[in-house]
Structures are given as C-alpha cells and as structure tokens.
C-alpha cells in the first residue's frame, strides 16, 4: 500500500503545463525528496498535494483514499502538513502562538467557548502552550519561546515553520526548500533536524535545491523535469543517471 499516490495528475496555468500527467507513488518510509531544475513543477506539485491548487485533471490518493479536490484544512486533518519555500510565518503572533495555530484542529474551537473563555479554553491553551514550547525545544528554538516573530532571524523562522507543521501531528510532512537561504552551518543542522523528525515516524517529503542535503538525507528521490517524472531511485543511482545530469547541467557533448 502506498502512502501517497498520484494518478495522471496535471495542472496548467494559462496553457502551460506546470505539472503534466504525472503519476508516481510514495511508499511509506522516512525521507523522500523531489528534485528537478527550476520550473520543473515541484512547488506546484506540493500545492496540489496540500490542496492549495486544484488539479486540472488526475487524482491524488492518500493512504489509498481519494483526496483530490479536498480543501487544505481538510487535508491537514488527515495528517498532511507542510512548510513553505517563501516564509509563511504569522508575523502578527509570537513564536509560541505560531506553533499553537498548528494545534488548531485539536483545540476547542467553539466560538462561544472562546468568547466566554470556558475552562476548556483556559486548560486547553495551557496544555497547548506547554506542548508548543516542547516543540520549539525539539527544533532547537528553546531560546525563542517568548519571542516575537518579527525579531527572529531567518534561520530560526525556517525552523519555526517546521515546529508549527509538526504541531498538527502529521503523518506526512512536506518540506519546501527548508535550506533555502541558509548558510552551510545552518543547512547542516536542518539536515539533522530532518533526520530527527523522520526518526519520530513522520514521513518526510522534501523539495530542495541543496543537492548535498538531498543526496545525504534521502532514502528515495524523484526527479521532475517540465512537470514530468524524469527518474526515481536512490541517491547514488540518481546522481549517475545521465538524464538527470543532462537535465541539470545541459548536455556536455552537444555543443562541442
């Protein structure tokens, strides 16, 4: 049984196919990566899987049930969580509150209860706050528990997004370029964070440009080009696949 399966998935913008009749299956396992040159359709694919875009055609299955066309907030309830290539931090909230939003679906969200501050809200928030602090510790942001997000450095915000996504207790975590904009040292610690997340039996699907990170951490790699699947396999195979090399660097033989 596959965890996530795409069936002839397509999505076009203004006549251009960003994702083009794509089919593949993600088997349960700790860390998967989706790579490909610029414009290969990786982020569009993430947006399709998490329901932000509706596919032009095709289907998406999660745990073998059809989730095509479901709203993002419904998918979150099924166990899909993600981070974003461009930071999508709630800058109008503190770090710990950002993480608490991640627990939205497990919180008491009755309107009148919130308005009148029922006991369930008070205790629920206290527990959520404690759990959020734990999660911040987990992603090594223990020092920022009380911080306003507007004063946090970029690298910390990248981790905060991961903590926030984990707060939803996902079974699958989609990370969209977690290392983008980070220096090598920060990238290395993101590397170990990903492994730590995977060790907690969360399946990670990673889109990333930093090949060193991808090759080092992935159990399975999918290569996209022009919205289609170019290759898939283990890191070693991918790296020595001539199609992949050509996709990335161009064909060395052609000009000379």
């Amino acid at each position: 049984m596959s965890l996530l399966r795409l069936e002839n998935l397509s999505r076009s913008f203004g006549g251009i196919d960003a994702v083009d009749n794509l089919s593949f299956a993600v088997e349960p396992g700790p860390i998967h990566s989706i790579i490909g040159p610029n414009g290969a359709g990786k982020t569009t694919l993430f947006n399709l899987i998490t329901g932000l875009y509706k596919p032009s055609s095709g289907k998406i299955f999660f745990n073998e049930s059809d989730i095509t066309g479901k709203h993002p907030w419904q998918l979150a309830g099924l166990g899909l969580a993600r981070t974003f290539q461009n930071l999508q931090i709630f800058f109008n909230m503190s770090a710990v509150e950002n993480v608490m939003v991640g627990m939205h679906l497990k919180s008491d969200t009755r309107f009148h209860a919130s308005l009148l501050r029922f006991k369930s809200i008070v205790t629920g928030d206290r527990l959520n706050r404690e759990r959020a602090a734990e999660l911040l510790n987990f992603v090594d942001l223990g020092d920022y528990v009380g911080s306003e997000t507007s004063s946090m450095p970029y690298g910390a915000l990248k981790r905060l997004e991961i903590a926030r996504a984990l707060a939803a207790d996902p079974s699958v975590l989609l990370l969209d370029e977690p290392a983008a904009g980070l220096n090598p040292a920060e990238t290395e610690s993101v590397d170990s964070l990903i492994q730590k997340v995977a060790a907690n039996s969360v399946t990670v699907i990673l889109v990333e440009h930093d090949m060193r990170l991808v090759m080092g951490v992935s159990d399975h790699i999918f290569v996209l080009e022009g919205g289609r699947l170019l290759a898939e396999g283990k890191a070693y195979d991918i790296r020595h696949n001539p199609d992949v090399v050509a996709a990335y660097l161009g064909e060395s033989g052609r000009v000379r």
Partner: protein
Amino acid sequence: MLLGIKELDCHYGRIQALHGIDMAVDEGELVALVGANGAGKTTLLRTISGIEPASGGSITLDGHDITHYSSDKRVRLGIIQVPEGRQMFAPMTVEDNLMIGGYTRSGDERSETLEQVFAMFPVLKERRHNAAGTLSGGQQQMLAISRALMARPRLLLLDEPSMGLSPLLVDEVFATIQKLRDAGTTIFLVEQNAYMALAIADRGYVMEAGAIVLADSGERLIVNDRVKEAYLGL
C-alpha cells in the same frame, strides 16, 4: 575592465542572498555565471541592474562607482538586462515592445536600431503588429533579446535565456548569443544549463549559496568536476 564588482552583499528580506561577490567583465567578453537553483545568480543580476539595492560592496562601470544609481540611470549607461522568463509586455505589439526597449535612446537611434534588429530577426519584422503574447516561446526570447538590444547595451545581462525552451530552440538562442558576441557585444550570461553556457563563454564563474566558488576559463570549467558538484552535491 567594463564591469567591476567588489565584495558585493545583498539582503533579500531576511536572507543574505549575496556574500562578498568579487568579479569582473571586460569589454567584448562573454562571461558565464553558472550554479544551481537558488545559488543567487538572479539576485546578482538584479543587483547589477539596480533592481535590488546592494547592502555592501561596490559596482563599477568603466571604473565609475554606480552602486547607488537608480535602475533607469544604469540603463542609460548601457547596462541592459534580459530578465528571466522573458517578461514581455504581452498585450502590446512586437514593435511597441521594441520601442519601449529603446525608451532611453533618441528617436533616430531607435529607428536605426530597429532596422538592425529586424534585419537580424526577420520573424519579428513579419509579426511586428502582433501582440507579443501571441509569439511562440522561442520568438519571445528573440524579442526579449532584441528589446534589450534596442537600448544599445554596452553590457548585456542575460538571465536564463534557455529556460522553458525545447532543445532545438535552445540551440538557436545560443547561436544568437554567439552571434552577438562576435558582433562585439559584451555579455554576462547566467545559465542553469552549465555545459552549454561554459562551452561558448570566454570565462566562467561558478556560484554556490550566494558566493562565487570558482572562476576560470570556460574550457577549463567545463571539465572541472567541482561544477558538477555545485549542481548535484557529489
């Protein structure tokens, strides 16, 4: 030295996208800048064009400091960029796109260059009254380059001219670039398609994580495994 860049930094929001870039382009040269996605190549071009402000270091043209010049002033000085994704004025005609390209030049210069451009790309002349958005991808790339030529560039900055084009068209674009170089235009080419770019370049720079990690002649870089490493993390 036409373009000189020293210790250039650029912050993109909270991210430091460029870390102390040092590089130069000489008159008449074709210099390629290669590197993986997200390495900071486009940011470097945007900083040279004045779209992104530099947060440190300097940019000089002919030895004059232009680090704090506005983008339109740089265009007047001859630094012209062909942006990534072609960026047509899609509903406007081919001819209007070209005229806008020559916005900073005098009327006579514009009509003169227009003739040259049409001679170089007859298809554009044929379709001069069509909306730019109706051109094919390859024609749009030609138009994008032509639009830049209308400004009579001293330094032409090309950002990913091969992106989204079929292999046949990529060849055509690269042939055009070579032709321009042969005609004496100084070109700074940013490409993901590293092998092709380096193959036609006099010199090349390899960028990784916002910094230049390697600089050499095109021929030598093309056989350097460090390039492949920058892309595929070997």
